[in-house]
């Protein structure tokens, strides 16, 4: 370890003087410490923390004499270094389980080394080839145009229902008109037993609702409820399969065993 007094005297004062001149240019107390450490002209790992503490305290003293106001964190660091200095100089107290002066000094050295490493890394990073300066991206770009294609589909059941709807117009009155606004599960069960013969593909349960029942909310509710109950009955009997993609999603049904078609 170099003689701490050397740094505590003339050199330290000269260094402190130089630092004071552009104290504005420093990025906090660690930055000052790092600059001071460089004056020791040794590897950061071999630094004399005691000497460094003295240098720093001299720097703060000098600022005080010159009535230069230092930011609070510079003064906090000064207080801590003064404490560290006393720790390093006094023999350790065996009663005290606080960290030793050597541990604290080692950590400060680590912090300085780490900050220096980051500075070196930053410099290396900025020295790399950079986009827009050393290498370049494509000048003429082509946007990907989005084309939306719509595919229409229909099931056999849709087709048959559609045809039935047309034929019904001429020959029959819609069934729903003869009833109250309530559809029983038995009625739904009767309908669905017949319809299922054409239900080989997954289809929304709502497509099974009869015409005339999808208009007013109360009729739709009744028809939906009865068809849902009927679907559960038929599923229980193994006649159809039910599925629902997500909570509150569409309920889809198809004839049981349609997979193997």
């Amino acid at each position: 370890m170099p003689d701490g007094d050397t740094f505590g005297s003339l050199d330290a004062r000269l260094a402190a003087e130089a630092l004071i001149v552009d104290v504005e240019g420093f990025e906090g107390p660690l930055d000052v410490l790092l600059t001071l450490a460089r004056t020791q002209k040794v590897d950061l790992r071999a630094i004399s923390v005691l000497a460094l503490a003295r240098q720093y305290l001299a720097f703060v003293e000098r600022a005080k004499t010159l009535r230069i106001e230092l930011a609070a964190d510079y003064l906090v660091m000064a207080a801590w270094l003064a404490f560290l200095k006393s720790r390093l100089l006094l023999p350790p107290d065996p009663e005290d389980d606080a960290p030793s002066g050597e541990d604290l000094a080692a950590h400060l050295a680590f912090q300085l080394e780490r900050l220096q490493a980051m500075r070196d890394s930053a410099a290396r990073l900025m020295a790399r080839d950079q986009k827009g300066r050393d290498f370049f991206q494509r000048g003429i770009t082509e946007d990907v145009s989005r084309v939306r294609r719509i595919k229409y589909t229909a099931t056999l059941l849709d087709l048959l229902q559609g045809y039935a709807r047309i034929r019904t117009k001429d020959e029959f009155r819609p069934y729903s008109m003869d009833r109250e606004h309530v559809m029983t599960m038995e009625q739904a069960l009767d309908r669905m037993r017949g319809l299922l013969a054409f239900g080989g593909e997954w289809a929304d349960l709502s497509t099974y609702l009869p015409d005339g029942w999808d208009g007013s909310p109360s009729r739709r509710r009744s028809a939906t409820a009865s068809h849902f109950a009927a679907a559960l009955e038929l599923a229980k009997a193994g006649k159809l399969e039910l599925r629902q993609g997500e909570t509150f999603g569409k309920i889809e049904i198809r004839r049981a065993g349609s997979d193997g078609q």
Partner: protein
Amino acid sequence: MDGEIRDTLFEAPPMAEQERMVEAILFATAEPVTVAELNARMPHGADAKKALAHLEKRYDGRGVAVVRVGDAWAIRTAPDLGFLMRKETVETRKLSRAAIETLAIIAYHQPVTRAEIEEIRGVGVSRGTVDQLIEMGWVRLGRRKMTPGRPVTFVVTEEFLDHFGLENARDLPGLKELRAAGLLENRPAPDAPTEDEDDNEQSDMFEEGQA
């Protein structure tokens, strides 16, 4: 070493190097670049025109091509790969009620004319509806009918049968079967009075209008 520096200072770089330069400039510049501009940007003594010719040949048959745009040059996507610059999203939608009904009539009554379809549906059939079915590949034109005006007829296609899992359009269930299946269940009560019918129909329409 010294000699090398002098070479690069006073002699044009080798043609392979010039080709690399043209490649980089054409790649990075936002507009097509003229030969004059290439020469101005390249080291003294370079021959951009020659380098361009080499580069053009090198990109022959590649995914991008060196192309002439007016009196300037650029790198562009090969014409046959333009499809890669389009992103297609397919959205599945249910066929409209009008289209389904029209399709059903064609399937059940083929070959059928537009006038016949309209008669069965009891409402006009828009050109677009039939066109859509044709475009989907489910309907095609059949033979002209041997009636006055020789109107065109429509028939369903193989693809239609395929989609609906039918061997033949004749396999479609008849009215009796539809009724048995419950699709034509809307049979009136035999004793229902006829004026009731009108009443109910009205209230039904009223309700539908509210939905």
